């Protein structure tokens, strides 16, 4: 199948500063792709090159096999939703939504019907004669979304569109956008620095760091099997420990976490004995108390225990070595300083080459 959008060896520099370095990226039709990364990682630059506000210094971008990297923004037919919505302050809600249709030179009557229908769909029909300044943040967000969708663009680009909303509204809009994506079969490229937003909404996530893609996979794979130290640390919380590979045998490796703590892990084939490696284990994948079927059972001491309402966070120590575990609540009456057995599944551990 021909890729829908393709970046080939795309680089972007501003003066001597290279923001994107020879990037390849393929986006399928109908998928929801999130570009996730810290600020300055190049994710927004990718979006701006796709929208046409920046031109690549080198490389090509194609849409359905046609090169688009030299096209001006207004010929690309991509609906962009901006960070602060970028609604036209001098136009009403209806005029804002009608704008892209006017640019397409549709007949007036058709524009009116389409605007009406689109606004009703997002429950803004009542507010169509208001100015953006008279709307709440969530309403402005919905107008911006409607405006980007109404002209049936080939791709929807969103640049941190939910960043300015409060938590509750943000979660609501996440569901609304996901729903729209499924219902209309849209291709969406979504830039965010919020990992939970990326995890909940996307078909695939591309994790950016320093102008390169560290990993591009489904949220499930990204979270459970990070392929680089950066991804392991950036997505979710993890215990990341530099360890020695003691032994490798039949897809299993033995890792020395410290002088007297050893763990069994599922090993990647390239892992070799005697090597240094990064060991990663999510706090919520640990159980406190012995697991009869488990391969890993380490005896450690409870150093601290922090109550978080819906869960507890337990600091475990063994000499200089520490782990953070997350569990629903501690059974029994363990006290700080008490010994405890920590168990985990070898499949939940990730070992990364240094």
């Amino acid at each position, binding site marked *: 199948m021909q890729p829908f959008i393709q970046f080939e060896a795309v680089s972007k520099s501003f003066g001597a500063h290279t923001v994107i370095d020879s990037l390849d990226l393929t986006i399928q039709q109908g998928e929801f792709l999130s570009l996730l990364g810290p600020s300055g990682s190049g994710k927004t630059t990718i979006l701006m090159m796709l*929208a*046409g*506000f920046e031109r690549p210094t080198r490389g090509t971008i194609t849409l359905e096999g046609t090169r688009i990297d030299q096209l*001006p*923004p*207004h*010929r*690309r*037919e*991509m*609906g*962009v939703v*901006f*960070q*602060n*919505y*970028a*609604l*036209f*302050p*001098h136009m009403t809600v209806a005029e804002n939504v009608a*704008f*892209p249709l006017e*640019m*397409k030179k549709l007949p007036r009557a058709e524009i009116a019907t389409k605007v009406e229908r689109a606004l009703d769909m997002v429950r803004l029909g009542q507010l169509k004669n208001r*100015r*953006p*300044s*008279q709307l709440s*943040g969530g309403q*402005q967000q919905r107008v911006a979304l409607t*405006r*980007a969708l109404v*002209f049936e663009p080939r791709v929807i*680009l969103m640049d941190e569109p939910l960043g*300015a909303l409060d938590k509750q509204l943000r979660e609501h809009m996440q569901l609304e956008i996901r729903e729209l994506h499924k219902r209309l079969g849209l291709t969406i490229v979504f830039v965010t620095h919020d990992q939970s937003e990326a995890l909940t909404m996307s078909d695939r996530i591309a994790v950016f760091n320093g102008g390169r893609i560290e990993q591009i996979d489904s949220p499930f794979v990204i979270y459970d099997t990070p392929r680089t130290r950066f991804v392991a640390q950036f997505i979710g919380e993890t215990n990341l420990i530099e360890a020695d590979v003691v032994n490798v045998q039949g897809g299993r490796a033995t890792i020395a976490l410290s002088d007297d703590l050893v763990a069994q892990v599922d090993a990647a084939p390239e892992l070799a004995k005697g090597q240094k490696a990064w060991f990663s284990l999510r706090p919520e994948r640990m159980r406190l108390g012995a697991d009869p079927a488990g391969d890993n059972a380490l005896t450690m001491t409870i150093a601290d225990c922090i109550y978080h309402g819906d869960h507890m966070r337990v600091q475990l120590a063994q000499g200089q070595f520490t782990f953070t575990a997350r569990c629903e609540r501690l059974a029994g009456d363990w006290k700080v300083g008490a010994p405890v057995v920590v168990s985990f599944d070898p499949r939940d551990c990730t070992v990364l080459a240094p």
Partner: protein
Amino acid sequence: MFRAIQTLFGVTIVGFLLLPIVAILPLAFTSSVFLTYPIEDYSLRWFTELATADAWRLSIMNSLIIGLGATLLSTVLGTLAALGMRSEVLPLASLLRTVFLLPMVVPAVVLGVGMQMLFVNFGLASTYPGVIVAHAVLCVPFVIVSVSASLQGIDRAVEKAASSLGASPVTVFHRVTFPLALPGIISGAVFAFATSLDEVVITLFVAGPNQRTLARQMFSSIRENISPTVVAAALLLIIGTLCLAGLAAALRWRQERNALRAAP
């Protein structure tokens, strides 16, 4: 005690600032030829004088002609330049801005003398175009400041949004940038007109008797033979400039309100 001193001070200075302007205005309605209180009898004779005496009538006409000409010229040139200065890739932007604002600070007499010497060579001395051009030079900084401020208030994302929605650069300008900058352009024009209306010094040097403006006429009548006509003219100017300033303030306020509310 401290509070009382504060209040007294505030009221005194407000009085110092406002009373002189307010106190003389009733004198425009005196029937006497002297500018003194108490006013024995009220009349409109000095307004009649203003409307009928050739020198005053001509000067009011001249002020309007020259003011409108200078406003048009400076607004067009200043708006274009402000648009150009908005570009981020412009070299020497801060130097250019300094040059554009310089007419505001150069002493008027110095500029006036220079213009008088130069305009003789151009054949512009004592002509309407000469006075209009001279006033426009003084008006330019006000237009630049006002239009630049309104352009700065435009979120560039709004223009990007328009172009992503299919608007060509020309369409982006006339559907988005220009309408959003318009209040700034209008208030710049208002400031320009008020500046021209009030200008005396440059006019002294470049205008001939036929281009005498209202301000110039007031200046020489205060100097030579002050009469209540001057106060009547002052009242006219105050009403005119306050209306214009009110218009400009209203536009600016509306623009700021829009900008504030549009930002989430």
